Protein backbone atom coordinates (compact mmCIF):
# COMPACT_ATOMS: atom_id res chain seq x y z
CA UNK A 1 0.00 0.00 0.00
CA UNK A 2 1.69 3.20 -1.07
CA UNK A 3 -0.70 4.55 1.50
CA UNK A 4 1.67 3.38 4.25
CA UNK A 5 4.94 3.93 2.43
CA UNK A 6 5.45 7.66 2.66
CA UNK A 7 4.90 8.24 6.38
CA UNK A 8 6.90 11.22 7.48
CA UNK A 9 9.65 10.66 10.03
CA UNK A 10 13.09 9.15 10.45
CA UNK A 11 13.71 5.44 11.04
CA UNK A 12 13.75 5.93 14.82
CA UNK A 13 10.26 7.45 14.71
CA UNK A 14 8.95 4.16 13.31
CA UNK A 15 10.09 2.07 16.29
CA UNK A 16 6.45 1.78 17.35
CA UNK A 17 4.98 1.61 13.87
CA UNK A 18 4.61 -1.69 12.04
CA UNK A 19 1.94 -2.00 9.37
CA UNK A 20 1.49 -5.54 8.08
CA UNK A 21 -0.96 -5.88 5.24
CA UNK A 22 -2.32 -8.65 3.06
CA UNK A 23 -3.43 -8.22 -0.53
CA UNK A 24 -4.59 -10.50 -3.30
CA UNK A 25 -3.26 -10.08 -6.82
CA UNK A 26 -5.94 -9.20 -9.36
CA UNK A 27 -6.53 -12.14 -11.68
CA UNK A 28 -3.93 -14.35 -9.99
CA UNK A 29 -5.26 -15.34 -6.59
CA UNK A 30 -8.18 -13.06 -5.80
CA UNK A 31 -11.13 -15.38 -6.49
CA UNK A 32 -11.07 -17.12 -3.11
CA UNK A 33 -9.27 -14.49 -1.09
CA UNK A 34 -12.04 -13.21 1.17
CA UNK A 35 -11.93 -15.97 3.85
CA UNK A 36 -8.13 -15.78 3.80
CA UNK A 37 -8.21 -12.04 4.39
CA UNK A 38 -10.62 -12.55 7.27
CA UNK A 39 -8.31 -15.19 8.71
CA UNK A 40 -5.42 -12.72 8.42
CA UNK A 41 -7.34 -10.23 10.55
CA UNK A 42 -8.44 -12.85 13.07
CA UNK A 43 -4.86 -13.99 13.59
CA UNK A 44 -3.69 -10.39 13.91
CA UNK A 45 -6.11 -9.89 16.79
CA UNK A 46 -4.21 -12.50 18.83
CA UNK A 47 -1.09 -10.30 18.69
CA UNK A 48 -2.72 -7.18 20.18
CA UNK A 49 -2.74 -4.76 17.26
CA UNK A 50 -3.39 -1.06 17.82
CA UNK A 51 -5.49 -0.91 14.67
CA UNK A 52 -7.05 -3.22 12.12
CA UNK A 53 -8.69 -2.22 8.90
CA UNK A 54 -9.77 -2.94 5.39
CA UNK A 55 -9.49 -0.55 2.48
CA UNK A 56 -13.22 -0.52 1.80
CA UNK A 57 -14.70 0.02 5.27
CA UNK A 58 -12.01 1.63 7.41
CA UNK A 59 -10.36 0.93 10.73
CA UNK A 60 -11.32 -0.04 14.25
CA UNK A 61 -12.53 3.43 15.13
CA UNK A 62 -15.20 4.72 12.77
CA UNK A 63 -17.47 7.72 12.47
CA UNK A 64 -21.11 7.37 13.39
CA UNK A 65 -23.95 8.16 10.98
CA UNK A 66 -26.31 9.04 13.81
CA UNK A 67 -24.44 10.24 16.84
CA UNK A 68 -26.28 10.78 20.08
CA UNK A 69 -25.83 14.46 21.13
CA UNK A 70 -24.96 13.29 24.65
CA UNK A 71 -21.84 11.72 23.14
CA UNK A 72 -20.17 15.13 23.35
CA UNK A 73 -19.74 14.52 27.03
CA UNK A 74 -19.06 10.80 27.00
CA UNK A 75 -17.67 9.54 23.73
CA UNK A 76 -16.57 5.95 23.30
CA UNK A 77 -12.97 6.01 22.06
CA UNK A 78 -12.29 2.28 22.27
CA UNK A 79 -11.41 0.55 18.98
CA UNK A 80 -13.87 -2.09 17.80
CA UNK A 81 -11.72 -4.76 16.18
CA UNK A 82 -14.56 -7.23 15.76
CA UNK A 83 -16.48 -4.70 13.66
CA UNK A 84 -13.57 -4.75 11.20
CA UNK A 85 -13.43 -8.54 11.02
CA UNK A 86 -17.18 -9.04 10.83
CA UNK A 87 -17.62 -6.17 8.37
CA UNK A 88 -15.19 -7.51 5.79
CA UNK A 89 -17.40 -8.49 2.85
CA UNK A 90 -15.29 -7.83 -0.25
CA UNK A 91 -11.80 -8.77 -1.37
CA UNK A 92 -9.64 -5.77 -0.60
CA UNK A 93 -6.43 -4.88 1.21
CA UNK A 94 -6.46 -5.73 4.92
CA UNK A 95 -4.03 -4.25 7.41
CA UNK A 96 -2.92 -4.82 10.99
CA UNK A 97 -0.97 -2.13 12.82
CA UNK A 98 1.34 -2.88 15.75
CA UNK A 99 3.21 -0.60 18.09
CA UNK A 100 5.42 -3.37 19.39
CA UNK A 101 8.29 -4.92 17.43
CA UNK A 102 8.03 -8.33 19.09
CA UNK A 103 4.30 -8.57 18.39
CA UNK A 104 4.85 -7.64 14.73
CA UNK A 105 7.64 -10.19 14.39
CA UNK A 106 5.59 -12.95 16.01
CA UNK A 107 2.61 -12.11 13.82
CA UNK A 108 4.68 -12.31 10.64
CA UNK A 109 6.06 -15.67 11.74
CA UNK A 110 2.55 -16.95 12.41
CA UNK A 111 1.25 -15.70 9.07
CA UNK A 112 4.03 -17.57 7.33
CA UNK A 113 3.00 -20.76 9.14
CA UNK A 114 -0.67 -20.26 8.19
CA UNK A 115 0.32 -20.27 4.51
CA UNK A 116 -2.64 -18.20 3.28
CA UNK A 117 -1.14 -17.64 -0.17
CA UNK A 118 -1.80 -13.89 -0.13
CA UNK A 119 0.93 -11.32 -0.67
CA UNK A 120 2.00 -9.91 2.68
CA UNK A 121 3.98 -6.71 3.10
CA UNK A 122 5.57 -5.08 6.12
CA UNK A 123 5.67 -1.31 6.05
CA UNK A 124 8.02 0.21 8.61
CA UNK A 125 11.68 1.19 8.83
CA UNK A 126 13.86 -0.83 6.47
CA UNK A 127 15.68 -2.47 9.38
CA UNK A 128 12.43 -3.17 11.21
CA UNK A 129 11.06 -5.11 8.24
CA UNK A 130 14.32 -7.02 7.84
CA UNK A 131 14.14 -8.07 11.48
CA UNK A 132 10.58 -9.32 10.98
CA UNK A 133 11.76 -11.43 8.05
CA UNK A 134 14.75 -12.80 9.98
CA UNK A 135 12.55 -13.75 12.91
CA UNK A 136 10.28 -15.73 10.56
CA UNK A 137 13.25 -17.18 8.61
CA UNK A 138 12.02 -15.44 5.46
CA UNK A 139 14.05 -13.87 2.68
CA UNK A 140 12.61 -10.54 1.55
CA UNK A 141 11.07 -10.86 -1.90
CA UNK A 142 10.87 -7.22 -2.98
CA UNK A 143 11.32 -3.85 -1.41
CA UNK A 144 9.68 -0.50 -2.18
CA UNK A 145 11.76 2.40 -0.86
CA UNK A 146 10.21 5.72 0.09
CA UNK A 147 12.31 8.63 -1.13
CA UNK A 148 10.17 11.17 0.72
CA UNK A 149 8.60 14.37 -0.55
CA UNK A 150 10.05 16.59 -3.24
CA UNK A 151 8.97 19.43 -5.51
CA UNK A 152 7.04 22.35 -4.01
CA UNK A 153 7.70 21.29 -0.42
CA UNK A 154 7.09 24.85 0.77
CA UNK A 155 3.41 23.95 0.44
CA UNK A 156 3.78 21.39 3.25
CA UNK A 157 3.18 22.09 6.96
CA UNK A 158 5.67 21.57 9.80
CA UNK A 159 7.09 18.18 10.75
CA UNK A 160 4.73 17.50 13.68
CA UNK A 161 1.68 18.04 11.51
CA UNK A 162 3.19 15.95 8.70
CA UNK A 163 3.96 13.05 11.02
CA UNK A 164 0.31 12.94 12.02
CA UNK A 165 -1.38 13.59 8.71
CA UNK A 166 0.79 11.24 6.64
CA UNK A 167 -0.33 8.31 8.78
CA UNK A 168 -3.24 8.27 6.37
CA UNK A 169 -1.44 8.22 3.05
CA UNK A 170 -4.76 8.52 1.27
CA UNK A 171 -4.85 12.08 2.57
CA UNK A 172 -8.11 11.73 4.51
CA UNK A 173 -6.55 13.23 7.65
CA UNK A 174 -6.10 16.86 6.78
CA UNK A 175 -3.13 18.98 7.78
CA UNK A 176 -5.60 21.48 9.30
CA UNK A 177 -7.24 18.95 11.59
CA UNK A 178 -3.84 17.59 12.64
CA UNK A 179 -2.66 21.11 13.46
CA UNK A 180 -5.91 21.79 15.33
CA UNK A 181 -5.46 18.65 17.44
CA UNK A 182 -1.88 19.61 18.31
CA UNK A 183 -3.15 23.03 19.37
CA UNK A 184 -6.02 21.57 21.41
CA UNK A 185 -3.68 19.23 23.25
CA UNK A 186 -1.31 22.15 23.92
CA UNK A 187 -4.20 24.22 25.23
CA UNK A 188 -5.39 21.35 27.41
CA UNK A 189 -8.77 21.30 25.68
CA UNK A 190 -8.44 17.61 24.85
CA UNK A 191 -6.25 14.74 25.99
CA UNK A 192 -3.91 13.12 23.45
CA UNK A 193 -6.14 10.01 23.56
CA UNK A 194 -9.21 12.04 22.61
CA UNK A 195 -7.34 13.91 19.88
CA UNK A 196 -6.07 10.64 18.44
CA UNK A 197 -9.60 9.22 18.29
CA UNK A 198 -10.82 12.19 16.22
CA UNK A 199 -7.99 11.76 13.74
CA UNK A 200 -8.34 7.97 13.52
CA UNK A 201 -11.98 8.18 12.45
CA UNK A 202 -10.98 9.89 9.21
CA UNK A 203 -8.58 7.14 8.16
CA UNK A 204 -10.52 5.16 5.58
CA UNK A 205 -8.47 1.96 5.57
CA UNK A 206 -7.38 1.47 9.17
CA UNK A 207 -3.62 1.94 8.83
CA UNK A 208 -3.52 4.94 11.18
CA UNK A 209 -1.37 4.17 14.21
CA UNK A 210 -3.04 5.57 17.37
CA UNK A 211 -0.04 4.77 19.61
CA UNK A 212 2.43 6.64 17.45
CA UNK A 213 -0.05 9.50 17.06
CA UNK A 214 -0.44 9.74 20.82
CA UNK A 215 3.32 9.90 21.25
CA UNK A 216 3.61 12.60 18.58
CA UNK A 217 0.87 14.66 20.26
CA UNK A 218 2.49 14.29 23.68
CA UNK A 219 5.82 15.43 22.23
CA UNK A 220 4.17 18.31 20.39
CA UNK A 221 2.69 19.60 23.66
CA UNK A 222 6.13 20.72 24.82
CA UNK A 223 8.17 21.00 21.62
CA UNK A 224 7.73 23.71 19.04
CA UNK A 225 8.71 21.62 16.00
Amino acid at each position, binding site marked *: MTNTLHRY*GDAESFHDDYVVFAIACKGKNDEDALPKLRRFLEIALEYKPVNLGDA*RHGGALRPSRSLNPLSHWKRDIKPDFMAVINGLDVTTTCAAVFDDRVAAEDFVKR*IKEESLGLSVNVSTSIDGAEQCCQHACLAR*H*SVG*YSLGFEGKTEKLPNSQVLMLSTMCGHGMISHSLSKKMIDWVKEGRRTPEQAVSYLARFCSCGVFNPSRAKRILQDARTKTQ
Partner: protein
Amino acid sequence: MKIDPAKCVACGNCTYVCPMGAIYIDPERKRATIDRDECVECYACFNGLSQEHLNPTLVRTIRRILALARVRFDPEPDVCPTAAFVPDELTWPRTVRRAFSDPRVPHESTGIEGRGTEEVKTNDVSGRVRAGEVGFTIEFGRPGVGVRFREIQEMCWALAKAGVAFEKKNPVTSLMTDVGTGTIREDILGEKVMSAIVEIKTGVERTEEIIRLVWEVEKRLDTVVALGVGARCDEQGDEDQVREILERLGYRLERAKTNIGLGRISSAHAEDSRKALTV
Protein backbone atom coordinates in the same frame (compact mmCIF):
# COMPACT_ATOMS: atom_id res chain seq x y z
CA MET B 1 -20.19 17.36 -2.67
CA LYS B 2 -22.76 19.88 -1.57
CA ILE B 3 -23.71 21.44 1.75
CA ASP B 4 -27.41 21.92 2.34
CA PRO B 5 -27.75 25.62 3.35
CA ALA B 6 -31.04 24.87 5.10
CA LYS B 7 -29.21 22.50 7.45
CA CYS B 8 -25.77 24.10 7.85
CA VAL B 9 -25.31 25.96 11.15
CA ALA B 10 -21.83 27.32 10.28
CA CYS B 11 -20.17 25.56 13.21
CA GLY B 12 -16.97 25.45 11.15
CA ASN B 13 -15.95 21.87 11.99
CA CYS B 14 -15.86 20.92 8.33
CA THR B 15 -13.45 23.73 7.44
CA TYR B 16 -10.67 21.87 9.29
CA VAL B 17 -11.37 18.38 8.02
CA CYS B 18 -11.24 19.20 4.30
CA PRO B 19 -7.83 17.94 3.10
CA MET B 20 -7.79 20.56 0.34
CA GLY B 21 -8.94 23.46 2.52
CA ALA B 22 -11.80 23.96 0.09
CA ILE B 23 -14.51 24.65 2.71
CA TYR B 24 -14.99 28.05 4.32
CA ILE B 25 -17.74 29.95 6.10
CA ASP B 26 -19.18 32.52 3.73
CA PRO B 27 -19.40 35.72 5.84
CA GLU B 28 -22.52 36.97 4.03
CA ARG B 29 -24.50 33.74 3.77
CA LYS B 30 -23.22 32.56 7.14
CA ARG B 31 -23.07 29.02 5.82
CA ALA B 32 -20.23 26.61 5.10
CA THR B 33 -19.43 26.82 1.41
CA ILE B 34 -17.39 24.57 -0.87
CA ASP B 35 -15.00 26.00 -3.45
CA ARG B 36 -15.94 23.59 -6.23
CA ASP B 37 -12.78 24.19 -8.22
CA GLU B 38 -10.60 23.21 -5.25
CA CYS B 39 -12.82 20.36 -4.02
CA VAL B 40 -11.44 16.98 -5.19
CA GLU B 41 -14.56 14.97 -4.23
CA CYS B 42 -12.61 12.91 -1.70
CA TYR B 43 -15.66 12.60 0.56
CA ALA B 44 -13.52 13.09 3.70
CA CYS B 45 -16.23 15.48 4.95
CA PHE B 46 -19.13 13.14 4.22
CA ASN B 47 -17.44 9.87 5.23
CA GLY B 48 -15.20 11.12 8.02
CA LEU B 49 -17.43 13.45 10.01
CA SER B 50 -19.82 11.76 12.41
CA GLN B 51 -23.35 12.99 11.93
CA GLU B 52 -25.92 14.24 14.37
CA HIS B 53 -29.41 15.07 13.21
CA LEU B 54 -30.16 18.11 15.35
CA ASN B 55 -32.73 20.75 14.48
CA PRO B 56 -30.80 23.49 12.58
CA THR B 57 -32.98 26.33 13.85
CA LEU B 58 -32.50 25.24 17.44
CA VAL B 59 -28.73 24.92 17.02
CA ARG B 60 -28.43 28.34 15.36
CA THR B 61 -30.46 29.96 18.15
CA ILE B 62 -28.33 28.40 20.88
CA ARG B 63 -25.14 29.39 19.09
CA ARG B 64 -26.40 32.99 18.72
CA ILE B 65 -27.23 33.26 22.42
CA LEU B 66 -23.88 31.82 23.44
CA ALA B 67 -22.07 34.16 21.05
CA LEU B 68 -23.83 37.18 22.63
CA ALA B 69 -22.38 36.13 25.96
CA ARG B 70 -18.99 35.65 24.29
CA VAL B 71 -19.23 31.96 25.15
CA ARG B 72 -18.30 29.48 22.53
CA PHE B 73 -19.81 26.01 22.53
CA ASP B 74 -17.05 23.41 22.49
CA PRO B 75 -18.42 20.57 20.39
CA GLU B 76 -16.62 17.47 19.24
CA PRO B 77 -14.48 18.57 16.28
CA ASP B 78 -15.33 15.61 14.06
CA VAL B 79 -19.09 16.05 13.99
CA CYS B 80 -21.52 17.68 11.59
CA PRO B 81 -24.36 18.51 14.00
CA THR B 82 -27.07 18.62 11.34
CA ALA B 83 -25.84 16.09 8.73
CA ALA B 84 -25.65 18.89 6.18
CA PHE B 85 -23.40 17.22 3.60
CA VAL B 86 -25.12 15.89 0.50
CA PRO B 87 -23.23 13.82 -2.09
CA ASP B 88 -23.50 15.33 -5.54
CA GLU B 89 -24.49 13.47 -8.71
CA LEU B 90 -21.13 13.60 -10.45
CA THR B 91 -20.78 13.59 -14.21
CA TRP B 92 -17.76 13.32 -16.48
CA PRO B 93 -15.14 14.76 -16.20
CA ARG B 94 -15.76 15.53 -12.53
CA THR B 95 -16.11 11.81 -11.78
CA VAL B 96 -12.39 11.51 -12.30
CA ARG B 97 -11.85 13.66 -9.20
CA ARG B 98 -13.60 11.17 -6.98
CA ALA B 99 -11.94 8.17 -8.59
CA PHE B 100 -8.51 9.57 -7.71
CA SER B 101 -9.43 11.10 -4.36
CA ASP B 102 -11.93 8.92 -2.50
CA PRO B 103 -9.93 5.84 -1.47
CA ARG B 104 -13.04 3.73 -0.97
CA VAL B 105 -13.93 3.86 -4.64
CA PRO B 106 -12.08 1.26 -6.72
CA HIS B 107 -10.58 2.48 -9.99
CA GLU B 108 -12.50 1.09 -12.94
CA SER B 109 -9.27 0.46 -14.82
CA THR B 110 -7.67 -1.75 -12.16
CA GLY B 111 -10.47 -2.65 -9.74
CA ILE B 112 -8.26 -1.56 -6.85
CA GLU B 113 -9.15 0.96 -4.15
CA GLY B 114 -6.92 3.83 -3.07
CA ARG B 115 -4.70 4.96 -5.90
CA GLY B 116 -5.46 1.83 -7.86
CA THR B 117 -1.97 0.39 -8.02
CA GLU B 118 -0.40 -2.91 -6.92
CA GLU B 119 3.28 -1.91 -7.44
CA VAL B 120 5.65 -4.38 -5.73
CA LYS B 121 3.18 -5.28 -3.02
CA THR B 122 2.01 -8.25 -5.10
CA ASN B 123 5.32 -8.72 -6.87
CA ASP B 124 5.71 -12.22 -5.42
CA VAL B 125 2.67 -13.24 -7.47
CA SER B 126 2.64 -10.82 -10.40
CA GLY B 127 6.38 -10.81 -11.16
CA ARG B 128 5.94 -7.20 -12.16
CA VAL B 129 9.45 -6.07 -11.21
CA ARG B 130 12.10 -8.69 -11.90
CA ALA B 131 15.76 -8.96 -11.00
CA GLY B 132 17.70 -6.20 -12.77
CA GLU B 133 14.62 -3.99 -13.03
CA VAL B 134 13.36 -1.01 -11.05
CA GLY B 135 9.74 0.01 -10.63
CA PHE B 136 9.09 3.69 -10.01
CA THR B 137 5.95 5.12 -8.43
CA ILE B 138 5.87 8.84 -9.03
CA GLU B 139 3.06 10.25 -6.97
CA PHE B 140 1.77 13.79 -7.39
CA GLY B 141 -0.15 15.94 -4.93
CA ARG B 142 0.62 13.97 -1.82
CA PRO B 143 0.45 14.85 1.02
CA GLY B 144 -2.48 17.23 1.18
CA VAL B 145 -1.60 19.50 -1.73
CA GLY B 146 -3.48 18.02 -4.68
CA VAL B 147 -2.62 18.12 -8.36
CA ARG B 148 -4.23 18.80 -11.72
CA PHE B 149 -3.75 16.39 -14.60
CA ARG B 150 -2.08 19.12 -16.64
CA GLU B 151 0.91 18.89 -14.33
CA ILE B 152 0.97 15.11 -14.33
CA GLN B 153 1.03 15.25 -18.12
CA GLU B 154 4.16 17.38 -18.04
CA MET B 155 6.00 14.58 -16.22
CA CYS B 156 4.49 11.91 -18.49
CA TRP B 157 5.66 13.75 -21.60
CA ALA B 158 9.20 13.91 -20.23
CA LEU B 159 9.20 10.24 -19.25
CA ALA B 160 7.80 9.15 -22.62
CA LYS B 161 10.44 11.22 -24.38
CA ALA B 162 13.05 9.33 -22.37
CA GLY B 163 11.61 6.14 -23.84
CA VAL B 164 10.22 4.51 -20.71
CA ALA B 165 7.09 2.36 -20.76
CA PHE B 166 4.13 3.20 -18.56
CA GLU B 167 2.60 0.45 -16.47
CA LYS B 168 -0.50 -0.76 -18.31
CA LYS B 169 -2.51 -1.63 -15.19
CA ASN B 170 -2.45 1.88 -13.80
CA PRO B 171 -5.28 4.43 -13.56
CA VAL B 172 -3.25 7.32 -15.01
CA THR B 173 -2.10 5.21 -17.97
CA SER B 174 -5.73 4.30 -18.64
CA LEU B 175 -6.49 8.01 -19.11
CA MET B 176 -3.82 8.55 -21.75
CA THR B 177 -4.90 9.08 -25.33
CA ASP B 178 -1.39 8.30 -26.53
CA VAL B 179 0.72 6.11 -24.25
CA GLY B 180 3.68 6.52 -26.58
CA THR B 181 3.90 10.24 -25.88
CA GLY B 182 2.36 10.26 -22.41
CA THR B 183 -0.49 12.49 -23.55
CA ILE B 184 -3.49 12.53 -21.21
CA ARG B 185 -7.01 13.11 -22.55
CA GLU B 186 -7.72 16.80 -23.04
CA ASP B 187 -11.04 16.97 -21.18
CA ILE B 188 -9.56 16.10 -17.77
CA LEU B 189 -6.40 18.22 -17.81
CA GLY B 190 -7.96 20.89 -15.58
CA GLU B 191 -9.39 18.43 -13.08
CA LYS B 192 -7.86 18.49 -9.62
CA VAL B 193 -7.35 15.28 -7.64
CA MET B 194 -5.98 14.41 -4.21
CA SER B 195 -3.11 12.46 -5.71
CA ALA B 196 -2.23 10.25 -8.64
CA ILE B 197 0.55 7.80 -9.30
CA VAL B 198 2.45 7.33 -12.53
CA GLU B 199 4.16 3.94 -12.68
CA ILE B 200 7.08 3.02 -14.89
CA LYS B 201 9.64 0.28 -15.04
CA THR B 202 13.21 0.41 -16.31
CA GLY B 203 16.47 -1.48 -16.06
CA VAL B 204 18.49 -0.80 -12.89
CA GLU B 205 21.12 0.96 -14.97
CA ARG B 206 18.65 3.78 -15.75
CA THR B 207 17.75 4.49 -12.11
CA GLU B 208 19.90 7.59 -11.75
CA GLU B 209 18.87 8.97 -15.14
CA ILE B 210 15.16 8.65 -14.32
CA ILE B 211 15.52 10.23 -10.89
CA ARG B 212 17.45 13.17 -12.33
CA LEU B 213 14.72 13.58 -14.93
CA VAL B 214 12.05 13.64 -12.20
CA TRP B 215 14.09 16.24 -10.30
CA GLU B 216 14.25 18.40 -13.41
CA VAL B 217 10.53 18.27 -14.19
CA GLU B 218 9.28 18.62 -10.60
CA LYS B 219 10.92 22.05 -10.40
CA ARG B 220 8.33 23.28 -12.89
CA LEU B 221 5.32 21.78 -11.11
CA ASP B 222 3.12 23.59 -8.61
CA THR B 223 2.76 20.55 -6.37
CA VAL B 224 4.68 18.00 -4.34
CA VAL B 225 6.00 14.69 -5.57
CA ALA B 226 6.48 11.50 -3.53
CA LEU B 227 8.86 9.11 -5.17
CA GLY B 228 8.86 5.37 -4.50
CA VAL B 229 11.36 2.91 -5.95
CA GLY B 230 10.69 -0.83 -6.00
CA ALA B 231 13.26 -3.55 -6.56
CA ARG B 232 13.50 -7.33 -6.43
CA CYS B 233 15.66 -8.81 -3.67
CA ASP B 234 18.07 -11.68 -4.30
CA GLU B 235 17.61 -15.22 -2.97
CA GLN B 236 19.08 -14.25 0.39
CA GLY B 237 16.64 -11.37 0.65
CA ASP B 238 19.27 -8.70 0.08
CA GLU B 239 18.91 -5.67 -2.12
CA ASP B 240 21.99 -3.50 -2.36
CA GLN B 241 22.16 -2.51 -6.01
CA VAL B 242 19.33 0.03 -6.08
CA ARG B 243 19.87 1.10 -2.48
CA GLU B 244 23.46 2.10 -3.24
CA ILE B 245 22.36 4.19 -6.23
CA LEU B 246 19.73 5.97 -4.15
CA GLU B 247 22.14 6.68 -1.31
CA ARG B 248 24.74 7.95 -3.78
CA LEU B 249 22.11 10.37 -5.07
CA GLY B 250 21.75 11.73 -1.54
CA TYR B 251 18.62 9.95 -0.34
CA ARG B 252 18.51 8.89 3.29
CA LEU B 253 16.45 5.74 3.18
CA GLU B 254 14.29 5.52 6.29
CA ARG B 255 11.16 3.62 5.37
CA ALA B 256 10.14 0.93 2.94
CA LYS B 257 7.40 -1.53 2.34
CA THR B 258 8.78 -5.02 2.17
CA ASN B 259 7.07 -7.83 0.31
CA ILE B 260 7.92 -10.91 2.34
CA GLY B 261 7.21 -13.38 -0.44
CA LEU B 262 4.27 -15.37 0.89
CA GLY B 263 1.97 -14.91 -2.09
CA ARG B 264 1.29 -17.61 -4.63
CA ILE B 265 -0.92 -18.06 -7.68
CA SER B 266 -4.12 -19.86 -6.71
CA SER B 267 -4.77 -23.35 -8.02
CA ALA B 268 -7.65 -22.14 -10.24
CA HIS B 269 -5.47 -19.56 -11.95
CA ALA B 270 -2.51 -21.92 -12.16
CA GLU B 271 -4.78 -24.36 -14.05
CA ASP B 272 -5.88 -21.55 -16.40
CA SER B 273 -2.26 -20.66 -17.06
CA ARG B 274 -1.41 -24.30 -17.76
CA LYS B 275 -4.31 -24.65 -20.22
CA ALA B 276 -3.32 -21.46 -21.99
CA LEU B 277 0.22 -22.75 -22.41
CA THR B 278 -1.08 -26.13 -23.69
CA VAL B 279 -3.28 -24.46 -26.32
